[in-house]
């Protein structure tokens, strides 16, 4: 274990993923260096690491994104490896290269792989060349109406017109058939020109009722690549995943195999090393298309760990140390079912508005097959500067049904007070018929769905509790000396009442 080329890992991240990596390092017998911004001095990753160094002000641009500062800390503390986690510098090829140039081990994808998968256009071309299916369409701008008609006929309706310089839905048109195509092309061009000063528009096939399904891959530097099956991440809000599960409840085995082998092919095409994720759109008709590759550990990696037993963070450490994979594809089997709920400091009833603040009470659920990865505890301040995800609830079951029942049980045990969170929202999802049937798409969360959480609330009890809390607050000095008859007599009377009036 200690023949490793490194023994002290700088973790260039914060929150639950920094805690996750520190745990993996501790299990591998490695020391860790935590870095922290002004607002994170008391954070859990700082307290859990072997070393801790302050790196700057609260805004990420002045701390967690300052690659030079982080590299300097690595040098000063004698760290001989850097793990970037996800987000921040994890897909920054320049930082990866700088770590390597400084003579340290980069626990992530090789810089070339990051670059190869970095741009949407570039990766699309590279994947097409490698025979990986991408969403059919053009990459270059469409020249004229004749070309538009030709391409649309080629790829088949419905299609989507998109502004090349675009974003935010501007210059975007869904077209269902040839009739409206030319006028849609003209208006998309006009809007693109008005919005971005550039009228370039391209066309993609519109994937109907898509699901977001991704394949976890793991590659060593010795030519071995395995996949660890898929994750379904279709339950999204603001295009961000909130609940993931694996296996995907509707994926036929042959599609799984086809998707996985495409993912392995894509991984090999960029000489990948380490843990990575190949994302696909899965159409309602069973067709699937490459979206992008995330060249890092994914937020939702724990559900894959739950069904395969492979500790992906430890695997990253071993592969980065040059070890060949210690298992083969045929050793891996899908064992049961797993669900992750990403717990955000946000208000689902206010369209998921972030809700940073002070966590007053914090109690995680426990018991069989329940895992929580978190970066907070009671008394933690959730800062406004970073992603509002504070914890991940990961639950395993022998079957999907068992897993759902257990996840709901765990959610009921979870207590986070002081800030608003998505816990109640998850409880509502777990009762939704579409979710229970496994029949959902990326459009699952609608404004109506969010309207309120009444069905999982306990309104009357909450009102009683609030009234009692207010009474105790108002009468605080009189707490002990109470009105009415003696405590013990009342106790007996009330116990009797309780027993006999129970419904």
């Amino acid at each position, binding site marked *: 274990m200690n023949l490793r080329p490194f023994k002290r890992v700088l973790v260039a991240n914060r929150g639950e993923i920094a805690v996750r990596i520190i745990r993996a390092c501790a299990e591998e017998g490695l020391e860790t260096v935590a870095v922290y911004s002004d607002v994170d001095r008391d954070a859990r990753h700082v307290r859990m690491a072997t070393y801790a160094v302050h790196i700057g002000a609260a805004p990420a641009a002045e701390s967690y994104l300052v690659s030079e500062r982080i590299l300097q800390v690595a040098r000063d503390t004698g760290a001989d490896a850097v793990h970037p986690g996800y987000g921040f510098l994890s897909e920054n090829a320049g930082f990866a290269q700088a770590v390597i140039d400084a003579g340290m081990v980069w626990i992530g994808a090789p810089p070339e792989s990051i670059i190869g998968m970095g741009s949407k256009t570039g990766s699309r071309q590279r994947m097409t060349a490698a025979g990986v299916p991408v969403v059919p369409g053009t990459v270059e701008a469409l020249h004229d109406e004749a070309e538009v008609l030709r391409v649309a006929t080629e790829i088949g309706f419905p299609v989507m017109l998109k502004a090349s310089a675009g974003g935010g839905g501007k210059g975007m048109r869904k077209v269902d058939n040839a009739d409206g195509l030319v006028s849609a092309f003209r208006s998309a061009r006009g809007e693109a020109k008005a919005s971005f000063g550039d009228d370039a528009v391209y066309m993609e096939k519109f994937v109907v009722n898509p699901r977001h399904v991704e394949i976890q891959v793991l590659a060593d530097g010795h030519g071995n690549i395995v996949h660890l099956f898929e994750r379904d991440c279709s339950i999204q809000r603001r295009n961000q995943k909130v609940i993931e599960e694996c296996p995907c409840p509707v994926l036929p085995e042959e599609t799984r195999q086809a998707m996985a082998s495409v993912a392995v092919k894509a991984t090999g095409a960029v000489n990948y090393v380490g843990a990575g994720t190949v994302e696909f759109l899965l159409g309602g008709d069973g067709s699937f298309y490459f979206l992008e590759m995330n060249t890092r550990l994914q937020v939702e990696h724990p559900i894959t760990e739950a069904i395969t037993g492979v500790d992906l963070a430890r695997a990253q450490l071993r592969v980065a140390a040059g070890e060949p994979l210690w298992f083969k594809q045929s050793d891996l089997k899908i064992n049961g079912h797993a669900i992750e709920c990403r717990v955000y400091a946000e208000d689902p009833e206010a369209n998921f508005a972030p809700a940073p*603040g002070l966590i007053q009470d914090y109690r995680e659920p426990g018991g069989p097959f329940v895992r929580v990865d978190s970066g907070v505890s009671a008394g933690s301040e959730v800062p406004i500067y970073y992603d509002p995800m504070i914890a991940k609830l990961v639950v395993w079951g022998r079957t999907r049904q068992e897993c759902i029942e257990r996840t709901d049980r765990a959610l009921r045990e979870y207590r*986070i007070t002081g800030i608003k969170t998505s816990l109640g929202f998850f409880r509502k999802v777990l009762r939704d018929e579409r979710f229970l049937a496994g029949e959902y798409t990326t459009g699952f969360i609608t404004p109506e769905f969010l309207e309120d959480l009444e069905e999982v609330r306990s309104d009357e*009890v*909450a009102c009683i509790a609030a009234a009692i*809390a207010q*009474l105790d607050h108002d009468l605080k000095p009189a707490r002990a000396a109470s009105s009415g008859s003696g405590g013990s007599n009342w106790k007996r009377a009330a116990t009797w009442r309780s027993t006999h009036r129970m419904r």
Partner: protein
Amino acid sequence: MHYDVTLDGKTRSVEIERVGEDYVRVVIDDGEPVVVERRALSGGMSLVIDGKSFDAGLVKREAGWDVSILGVQHPVEVLDPRKKALRLAGGAGEGKLKSSMPGRVVSILVEDGAVVEKGQAVIIIEAMKMENEVKAPVSGTVSGIQVTPGQAVDAGAPLLTITAESE
């Protein structure tokens, strides 16, 4: 003691008194009285209501309590007679709109005197890298805008006032 207890727009009239160290007698909306056994615990209280057990997390807010039960939060407003009188005197229809989160004001979508519908976005505040619309809680007329674009605001900072239409 009497409280008006409001949750999700529904107000309950609660008559409540202590009847022993651990016991409280509660009457809701003139219904049957219930004796509740409650134990104050760190971060909340354990309640046994008519034999049923509930574990509630409690956080004091300006206007009441946030109550967490079985993973779900209930923002409950509690008004005692004195506060109720004050509120009535202050004009029921006027509401100060406050920022629900710390952040930065991106833009103000209305002007003084504008008439807005309930649910209409009036201000955009950026927090945690996302833009969030602050919506009018009631239909009415905007006055007293207290922030400017670019300004940093704390949670609870007053933004503007909306005076409800008279019914």
